[in-house]
């Protein structure tokens, strides 16, 4: 599918409007200098918005503004409404959905709003501003015996963004769910500049609940993915936290780039493999049903282990050469981490796990664990190494990945493998040894799961870049044809394509957009254009 993006207003930010904005945030927090604005037009996956470039978005912002408070944001939004200036907010700004595709938009960088407002240890939630990262929250939460969800991008992502405006799943979903489901109270500056406080917050009852009174307005701002900056700005949110059975200050050993988390005595890590998808799936269901375990996760072993153990691509390559022929034997696996404050609970869990593995003809996979357990535990608990997936070729992207049942996820993996094969054979993707390189696992004890097909390509190489776009088209069509849920892929042109297939959601989003943002001040590039018509 092509991303055909419409040209926006070709406007230059009027000086007087600039001055008004400057009076809100101070001169040091706004800039229309071309050096500053150009830097914001460089993005990961920009090649999907701009096929002729590896990293440059089709447009750059008119100015960049750095608000420091909700009140400043309100004022900015009001000015923009009055003077027809569009806004695109971002938190950490990682990924082309943060960026700008048409002219006439100012970039709102929420970096200055970076506080953890509160961590309620007893009631297990935290309140954060946009620039708080998952790692910052995790370390503070762990001091209180709690843990947070971290998305697959790695812990340098914005907690608030992944709960509200964006999407994302993570390795610990079995225990910490995914952030669509962790969102509690929200403070939201609407596109017209009002402050909407969702749930219990609006009723003056605190942050603990994001739903109600009556219908849940959480349903407006977040579904499969969020608003991607297209419907106002979220300035604070509360997110659910989860019990952490490990030490309040985990011991991190090692040195750059190979760190590890000393495995606490009450933690056990297992990697288990089966002979085929069906056995692995059966085991997944049984383990989840037994409710044992802290983490259950599957990434493509053959690639992930050398990626973790190799400090550079060269080291990775040497290891890959060594294990390439073993790959097939270990592909149907998952990693389980058991953890409990209670010794007897841990013993029980081990017993159950071993019994299930036995029952399903699984085998425990020891060799990588013996001396690498700290590295693997750190990798799973913090996901700090996840962005190594960029390293082999300079960039990766993903496909499939709908939230669905594990059986359907596996179905997707089988289909994904078929599609992927030719791109590997044509050498336009990295031959990572994984037939399908699907990464995912169960959430909330397998209430649902997700499994996304990763692929590594070089966006600097025009052929590889072109292949990536082609593969995504093919994969997306495969998801639709095989009915494996709603695939990953935000943006209005994608909404136009997917919307009619999935309940005309593009039309609903367009109506919501028109109602809440009558002047279309929030840049809709990755949300939905107002008043979108239903495709026949």
């Amino acid at each position: 599918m092509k991303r055909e993006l419409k040209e926006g207003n070709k406007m230059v930010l009027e000086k007087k409007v600039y001055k008004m904005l400057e009076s809100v945030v101070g001169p040091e927090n706004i800039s229309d200098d071309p050096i500053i604005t150009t830097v914001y037009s460089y993005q990961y996956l920009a090649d999907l918005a701009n096929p002729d470039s590896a990293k440059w978005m089709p447009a750059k912002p008119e100015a960049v503004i750095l608000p420091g408070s909700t009140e400043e944001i309100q004022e900015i939004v009001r000015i923009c409404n009055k003077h027809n200036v569009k806004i695109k907010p971002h938190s950490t700004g990682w990924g082309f959905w943060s960026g700008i595709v048409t002219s006439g938009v100012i970039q709102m960088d929420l970096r200055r709003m970076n506080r953890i407002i509160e961590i309620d240890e007893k009631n297990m939630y935290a309140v954060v501003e946009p620039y708080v990262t998952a790692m910052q929250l995790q370390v503070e939460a762990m001091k209180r015996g709690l843990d947070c969800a971290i998305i697959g991008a790695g812990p340098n992502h914005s907690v608030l963004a992944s709960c509200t405006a964006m999407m994302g799943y993570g390795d610990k979903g079995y225990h910490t769910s995914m952030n669509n489901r962790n969102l509690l109270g929200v403070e939201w500056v609407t596109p017209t500049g009002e402050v909407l406080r969702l749930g219990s917050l609006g009723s003056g009852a605190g942050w603990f609940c994001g739903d109600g009174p009556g219908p849940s307005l959480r349903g407006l701002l977040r579904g499969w993915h969020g608003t991607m900056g297209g419907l106002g700005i979220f300035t604070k949110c509360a997110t659910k936290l989860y019990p952490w059975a490990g030490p309040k200050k985990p011991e991190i050993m090692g040195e750059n780039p190979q760190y590890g988390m000393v495995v606490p005595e009450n933690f056990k890590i297992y990697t288990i493999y089966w002979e085929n998808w069906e056995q692995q799936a059966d085991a997944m269901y049984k383990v989840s049903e037994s409710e044992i375990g802290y983490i259950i996760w599957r990434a493509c072993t053959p690639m992930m282990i050398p990626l973790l153990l190799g400090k550079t691509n060269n080291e990775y390559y040497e290891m890959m050469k060594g294990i390439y022929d073993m790959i097939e034997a270990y592909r149907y696996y998952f990693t389980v981490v058991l953890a409990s404050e209670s010794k007897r609970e841990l013993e029980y869990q081990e017993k159950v796990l071993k019994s299930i593995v036995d029952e399903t003809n699984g085998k425990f996979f020891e060799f990588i664990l013996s001396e690498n357990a700290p590295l693997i535990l750190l990798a799973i608990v913090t996901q700090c190494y996840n962005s190594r997936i960029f390293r082999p070729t300079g960039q990766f992207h993903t496909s499939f990945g709908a939230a669905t049942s594990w059986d359907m996820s596996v179905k997707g993996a089988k289909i994904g493998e078929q599609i992927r094969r030719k791109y590997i054979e044509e050498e336009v993707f990295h031959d990572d040894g994984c037939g399908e390189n699907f990464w995912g696992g169960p959430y909330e004890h397998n209430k649902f799961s997700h499994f996304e097909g990763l692929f590594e390509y070089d966006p600097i190489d025009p052929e590889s870049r072109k292949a990536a776009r082609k593969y995504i088209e093919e994969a997306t069509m495969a998801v639709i044809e095989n009915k494996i849920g709603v695939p990953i892929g935000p943006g209005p042109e994608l909404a136009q394509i997917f919307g009619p297939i999935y309940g005309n959601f593009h039309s609903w989003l367009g109506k919501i957009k028109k109602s809440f943002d009558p002047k279309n001040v929030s840049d809709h590039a990755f949300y939905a254009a107002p008043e979108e018509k239903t495709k026949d």
Partner: protein
Amino acid sequence: MSLEKYHVQTLRCNRCSLCKWVPQPKIASWRFSAACPSIQKYNFHAYSGGGRIIIACALLENKIDYTDELVKIVYTCSMCGACDVSCKMNYGGNLEPLEIMHALRVKCVEKGRIPTRHKTLLEDIREYDNPYREPRKKRGEWAEGMGIKDLSHETAEVLYYVGCTSAYRLPGLARTTATILQNAGVDFGILGKDELCCASTAYKIGDEALMEEYAKNNIEKFNNLGVKEVVTSCAGCYHMFKSYYPLIGEMNFDVFHITEYIERLMGEGRIKLSKRIPIKATYHDPCHLGRLAEPRVPWNGVEKKVMGQLIITDPPKEVRFGVKGVFDPPRNILKGIPGLEFVEMERIREYSWCCGSGGGVKAAFPELASFAAAERIEEANATGAEALVTACPFCEINLGDAIRERREKIKLYDIVELVLEAMHEEGVKGGQ
């Protein structure tokens, strides 16, 4: 390597902002999680390591020009390498932020587009052989009355290389170091007024030619002295000798930082730390002694693709992860002082927070230097330490300025002061 040769690397930044934080697993609190003083102060993405990589890319693709704003962004950076360490944790050698930023500075120098203050610094180095505009003849004055060998006409096993900052700004540091060496019975000498700048400042600003000129000169001079070892108490000079000089010429001597040397002398029983110093102290890892002091292994290979699109180097390139600097010797020394209670800050070793003075920042952007130092003082205070110890005169000056400006109670020491004190000798009393 010229900026052009980094073009491909500049397209590999994936805008993840890891460069703004200490390596993720080493984040121990929300408060002290940041790695980069520049982005912490200025906030626009351009001021991060990743931001400067993007600037380099944009310049190479003629999207932007060498404006005043660009110059300001490029040079409001102490070139501390924290971004480089964090980036490489996950991206290995795919891109090298510090090298790219350095190549960007080299380009700025070529274009004549550098801060005015830096132009002056370069001129001063040429004119005076030091960036402080101090007369050459005064360079050795700190040693008067100490009876130290003058290697311009004497020989010794060891050269004590003092460095511009100690010689002209912290003479007490030089005297203390020399006293330690004397008391340990080390056969050493100094160059005095014949000592030249190591050219660290020139290199950091991006004047590679000037640096090479001084490096060649120094290497030749040191070789000609016939010394077996060169010891320095300046972290800045140390990192030049360890990581850049070997690329310039063959060095017939080993290089040590004074902390390495003291640790060795302690092991040999030539230094005994016997006097109690009952203080709670924390240690600031100077960037130039730590992550930046990692030696460079020359590489003239190519990148190639295997297994489809996998990028490897041929031959394999040694990637600098910032871990082969001097981290343990200062700690071992402090832990060896009786009565001293040693506590660590959160940002240490290869992910230490920069004091803010390097890279020409102290001279041209004192507000940034001050900001970074203040942050470090706060971090030191958070440990409950009474004393902040460092092993770099440049860090000492900048941290000292911040302590004075903020009227902080914490006492600042160079490690050699505590060593001398603990050796039962009359040394310079510590603190400000």
